[in-house]
């Protein structure tokens, strides 16, 4: 949180342009740490609203897939990304990778580790921290990169690819996937207000 704007400023200064000269803002919209997503979302909302420019929300799982494609230039095939979602769950998604071109195959999932989705096992390559949690007996593809995090340059690649339409800053929101955490509701006796 404290480093974000100074880093934005440093990058813009290095490029010799001001925030108001940018055409669009791309950001990692999740899934991931709720607080981390909101820091990025809040800051990008502020930047884009201030500069009066649109926003391109980019999937964090797609960003990881794009990073994998960048570092495996020779690879072509399907890729299964899994990220540790805590609470014994993972965020997962499948992509097709063809050179530098990454395309999502189906929805992003939030699933329990002990219900490891078969779809993730059928890929030609796997990546992401979530694979460390895969139960024994789950077969892993031979092409594998566990240690990979989303990188801003891959957010840019995906944003420039044009698959995601730019939206208004007010619509730039995190995608949590986990929307129904079971906080305990209070038990009520009264059926009407007193």
């Amino acid at each position, binding site marked *: 949180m404290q*480093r974000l704007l100074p880093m934005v400023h440093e990058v813009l200064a290095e490029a010799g342009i001001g925030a108001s000269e940018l055409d669009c803002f791309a950001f990692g919209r999740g899934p991931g740490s*709720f607080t981390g997503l909101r820091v990025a979302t809040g800051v990008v*909302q502020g930047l884009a609203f201030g500069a009066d420019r649109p926003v391109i929300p980019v999937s964090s799982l797609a960003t990881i897939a794009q990073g994998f494609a960048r570092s495996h230039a020779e690879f072509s095939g399907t890729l299964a990304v899994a990220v540790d979602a805590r609470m014994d769950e993972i965020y997962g998604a499948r992509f097709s990778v063809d050179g530098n071109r990454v395309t999502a195959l189906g929805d992003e999932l939030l699933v329990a580790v002990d219900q490891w989705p078969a779809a993730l096992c059928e890929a030609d390559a796997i990546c992401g921290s979530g694979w460390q949690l895969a139960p024994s007996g789950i077969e892993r593809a031979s092409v594998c990169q566990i240690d990979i995090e989303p990188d801003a340059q891959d957010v840019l690649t995906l944003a420039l690819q044009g698959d995601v339409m730019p939206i208004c800053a007010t619509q730039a929101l995190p995608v949590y996937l986990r929307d129904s955490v079971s906080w305990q*509701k209070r038990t009520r006796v009264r059926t009407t207000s007193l």
Partner: protein
Amino acid sequence: MRVLGIETSCDETGIALYDTERGLLADALYSQIAVHSEYGGVVPELASRDHVRKTLPLIQQVLDDAGITRSELDAVAYTAGPGLIGALMVGAGVGRAMAYALGIPAIGVHHMEGHLLAPMLEDNPPDFPFVALLVSGGHTQLVQVEGIGRYELLGESLDDAAGEAFDKAAKMMDLDYPGGPHIARLAERGTLGRFTFPRPMTDRPGLDFSFSGLKTYTLNTVAEHALDNGLPDDQTCADIALAFQEAVVGTLVIKCRRALKQTGYKRLVIAGGVSANKSLREQLEAQLAKIGASVFYARKEFCTDNGAMIAYAGAQRLLAGQTADLAIQVTPRWPMDQLTPAGTDAHD
């Protein structure tokens, strides 16, 4: 100077636009009460999720209401603490980044300084110096105020805040959240004198408060009169609500009088959610008139959290030359007497 104020420290998203020449231009509030009431209190994660949805649309609404564009803003003020860290981060992130993109200064505001200065937005604002009673769901403090940022803590709650005690007493009788307005409404139907609750720490010298004993006393009284469903009958609930409110208000009044006597000041400012309580206002006015002192408070909607007080407090800090740097900083726990007087080095 036109200052945008952003308040997201708890369960209200408050946005306002304050002009140092023309006064308050617009304000908007989104309350999350409906979201949290079924949990009986604020769920921090849900609060943060709502703030990130509501902040920008409300900013747009306030600009539209005031008929100005974003490029006509001169500065952005946001609550930097104290409060829920995740909730604070949303307003601070949006506000600081927007100011950066607009190329204008930003300032992080202390939430309680915002409350304390809220009566300055009224037609008859108090002059310095004064004693302030800050009384909300998170705070019960008596502060000696000599000027902006010149605060000395005279006394505070050693346990629950007064507003928190209201919430908990309401919960004991299965009333809705937040408890303050519901207790106050029910108390109007109560029979004065049926119950007398203790006024904690009033028989001892000093200006500190304690409300946990009163809470236990309330719980015991509710249990004593409980019917099969675990609750007393409706009239008894009203009588308990009145006795509880009288005890809290009575305690606050005694301590305020004592604080004015100790400082020799003739002005008392009450601020924070509980300062909206009608009985507190009436009893303070009646009691303080006897000693030639007057009471100041904000309009009801500016007693609870709002963007106007943040815009105003931020404007005062900015006028004194203070600004926030690019490292976005929020301070969930931030004692008020750590603030610096306006005109000296800022917190940020």
